[in-house]
């Protein structure tokens, strides 16, 4: 494949220019403006980061650069000029010729964007062959080159696999390769790494960054994570509620943001828990002793795991997907009775299976889930969601139940009168997660297991939730077992850290000890994968990681 000398020569020329872009969305049969006159200018070979929380309109604007609006949306005003062509005036046929060949799109979930019935290479070749850019044989050859450049393992043969036969990080890279197939002038990346583990995310980021540089492709990179966009973008545009807040080069934005909102985004992850006294001499409320568990078959998902949790402390369980951290929670709650080992509660052995535990044992241990959308029954009002555990565990009825429900709502900083009769659908993601917390508190538990409770939320919202959990711990002296893959969260809220890898604990101890060197190699790999607010971070860190990974060969889940 030849590098695109033509576009190289024209670098600096304006490729995409959107002026006064207005987009409306339809809800309940009414059109509401969701993007209020945004201007975007993108030059050849340049990467623009669009950043904002959900509802900021960043994806909508990104997709509009292809002259497209999703069903239920319409572009009402403004111009979209792509390489001298007005996309708002272009016909469907002209747009179709453009999409895929000159403008490509990489979606957030590669797993959902690939057709599971076709091999990767067939899907790769479809676009160039369809657009008549190159014949099948040539496209296949180039695919192998691209797969190699994106550092996919075994580039000659990986294309002959089906989407379910490769990992999430590999699929996202295969998707990027697919977008590059026609050597487009512009690629729109829509949160391509949000669904990935930190260690996988960094690989995908590095691959995308290299390939975009190599081919001088212009890109729009959409994300809610400022640290990620700082690695990728030449310039950054901060959006909020469909308005531009601030535009500037990546370095300017990180080092000297002008607007308050940008500063808030930057300040995320600075929250830290205050130091607590040590546990010496105290009995733990929960003790997991040499637990081994399996979902059937010979593969042990947990191997000889021991953890202790003390009163009013937070134990963070960290690891990548497949490390067994969620399974540990299932073994503790009895959803998955362990094969060997024992769980003790205040020194008393807990029955292995959920069904054998009595109501009081169940009450003392509650759980909060990752997805507040599915953790709340959409057909129940908030009153019933919180009222049920009050009635079930504590026998509250009538006025007493109502009063306590309102009290709990106030406790999670939600106005009782306003929210008590609402249904989950009428709440935002952060509010739903608060309701889940209130439902746990209703049982008056001693231990709350938090399974990735902030991963599905925007960063500012996630931070609010963490602060709320911390305040509740200070007031109510509850303990948390905090399962997460996000080390920033761990740094913020944990007292003790347990690092898991393939069902085993590789390191555990007080936060300061685990986070301070010397680390176990795997802990260091995890730590080094967390993007920092420094545009040079990615380039510097990759070298160091290669070394660490070579030490861990054979010990990690295959990526």
């Amino acid at each position, binding site marked *: 494949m030849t590098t695109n000398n033509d576009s190289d020569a024209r670098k600096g020329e304006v490729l995409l220019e959107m002026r006064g872009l207005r987009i409306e969305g339809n809800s309940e049969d009414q059109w509401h403006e969701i993007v209020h006159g945004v201007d975007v200018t993108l030059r050849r070979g340049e990467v623009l980061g669009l950043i904002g929380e959900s509802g900021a309109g960043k994806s909508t604007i990104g997709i509009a650069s292809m002259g497209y609006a999703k069903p239920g949306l319409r572009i009402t005003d403004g111009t979209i000029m792509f390489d001298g062509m007005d996309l708002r005036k272009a016909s469907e046929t002209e747009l179709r010729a453009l999409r895929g060949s000159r403008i490509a799109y990489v979606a957030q979930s590669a797993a959902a964007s690939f057709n599971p019935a076709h091999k990767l290479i067939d899907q790769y070749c479809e676009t160039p062959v369809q657009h008549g850019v190159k014949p099948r044989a040539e496209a296949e050859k180039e695919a192998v080159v691209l797969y190699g450049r994106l550092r996919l393992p075994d580039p000659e043969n990986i294309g002959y696999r089906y989407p379910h036969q490769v990992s999430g990080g590999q699929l996202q890279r295969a998707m990027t390769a697919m977008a590059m197939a026609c050597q487009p002038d512009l690629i729109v990346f829509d949160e391509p790494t949000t669904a990935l583990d930190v260690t996988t995310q960094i690989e995908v980021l590095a691959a995308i960054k290299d390939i975009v540089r190599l081919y001088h492709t212009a890109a729009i990179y959409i994300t809610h994570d400022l640290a990620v966009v700082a690695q990728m973008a030449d310039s950054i545009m901060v959006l909020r509620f469909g308005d531009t807040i601030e535009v500037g080069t990546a370095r300017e934005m990180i080092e000297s943001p002008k607007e308050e909102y940008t500063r808030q985004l930057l300040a995320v992850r600075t929250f830290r828990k205050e130091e607590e006294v040590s546990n010496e001499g105290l009995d733990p409320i929960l003790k997991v002793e040499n637990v081994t568990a399996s979902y059937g078959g010979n593969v042990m998902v947990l191997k000889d795991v021991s953890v202790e949790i003390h009163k009013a402390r937070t134990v963070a369980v960290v690891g990548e997907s497949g490390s067994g951290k969620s399974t540990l929670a299932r073994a503790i709650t009895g*959803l998955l009775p362990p094969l060997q080992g024992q769980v003790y509660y205040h020194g008393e052995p807990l029955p292995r299976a*959920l069904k054998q535990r009595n109501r009081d044992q169940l009450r003392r241990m509650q759980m909060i*889930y990752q997805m507040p959308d*599915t953790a709340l*029954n959409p*057909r*129940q009002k908030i009153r019933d969601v919180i009222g049920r555990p009050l009635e*079930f*565990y504590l026998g509250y009825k009538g006025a007493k139940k109502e009063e306590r429900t309102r009290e709990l709502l106030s406790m999670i900083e939600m106005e009782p009168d306003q929210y008590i009769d609402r249904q989950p659908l009428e709440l935002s993601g952060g509010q739903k997660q608060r309701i889940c917390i209130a*439902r746990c508190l209703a049982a008056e538990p001693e231990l709350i297991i938090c399974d990735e409770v902030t991963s599905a939320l925007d960063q500012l919202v996630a931070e609010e939730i963490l602060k709320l959990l911390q305040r509740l711990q200070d007031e109510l002296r509850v303990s948390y077992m905090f399962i997460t893959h996000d080390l920033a969260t761990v740094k913020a809220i944990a007292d003790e850290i347990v690092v898991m890898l393939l069902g085993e604990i590789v390191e555990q101890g007080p936060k300061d000890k685990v986070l301070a060197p010397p680390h176990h190699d795997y802990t260091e790999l995890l730590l080094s994968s967390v993007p920092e607010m420094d545009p040079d971070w990615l380039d510097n860190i990759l070298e160091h990681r290669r070394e660490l990974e070579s030490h861990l060969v054979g010990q990690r889940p295959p990526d």
Partner: protein
Amino acid sequence: MGNFWKELKKAPISAKLGMLIIVVNAFVAIFAPIISPYGETEIVGSEFEPWSDTFLLGTDNLGRDMFTRMNYGARNTIGIAVLTTILAFLLGSLMGLLASTLGGWVDQLISRIVDILLAIPTLIFALLVLTIVGTEIPNVIACIAVIYSAPVFRLARAVSMNIVVLDFVEVARLRGEGTWWIIVKEVLPNSMPPLVAEFGLRFCFVFLVISALSFLGLGIQPPTADWGSMVRDNATLITYGDVTPLLPAAAIAVLTVGVNFVVDWFLYKTSGLRDDH
């Protein structure tokens, strides 16, 4: 309620027509004794009299007023069909929800029994059973309800299978809730839309089967008026080019089409709602 009227106004013309048909049928069925000029089994004239002012739609093979019989037929046929469908739904949904919530051997056992039921052709099975146990109305209802609970079971199980794996059901399990609570409070309310749509469709099938059985002489027994047997009783008239015997058949067809119109609209509404989220 205000919402309901707003939705109704926006309904397509076919759905409105369907609702009109259902309302007229329900009205006739409920007020049959008031709007009919004669008694249900009363012999009021000679056989096969033509349409006239005294006998609006003529008389049947025994000299009973056809118009009166049509009204009472609506009451009997629709009433029994509704009752049968409700029974089939109670049985099928309960079994389906139990199978998906409990899983394991309970699911296996019920599912295999249902497989056997589904393997036997409906009408032949009904004929066989009714010949053995007799053709009293409760037998007819029970027999058809059991047969039609099988497809309802399959739907209820499939729908609720996707719901029992959601986190809020796990939350209820972790809380220590019993199976009954989980079925009634957590799973059932979330499986309602497809079940309601299925109710409309099943009603049509049940209705047709009852009419078919009556036509074959094993359904609702004379002298009770019902649309299926009325077609058979007066079939001889067709040879004389008279359309009267086709009227009950037309009534069956019109009601079936009407119900389907409404169900289609409802299905569209519920699937449309799902796209929003």
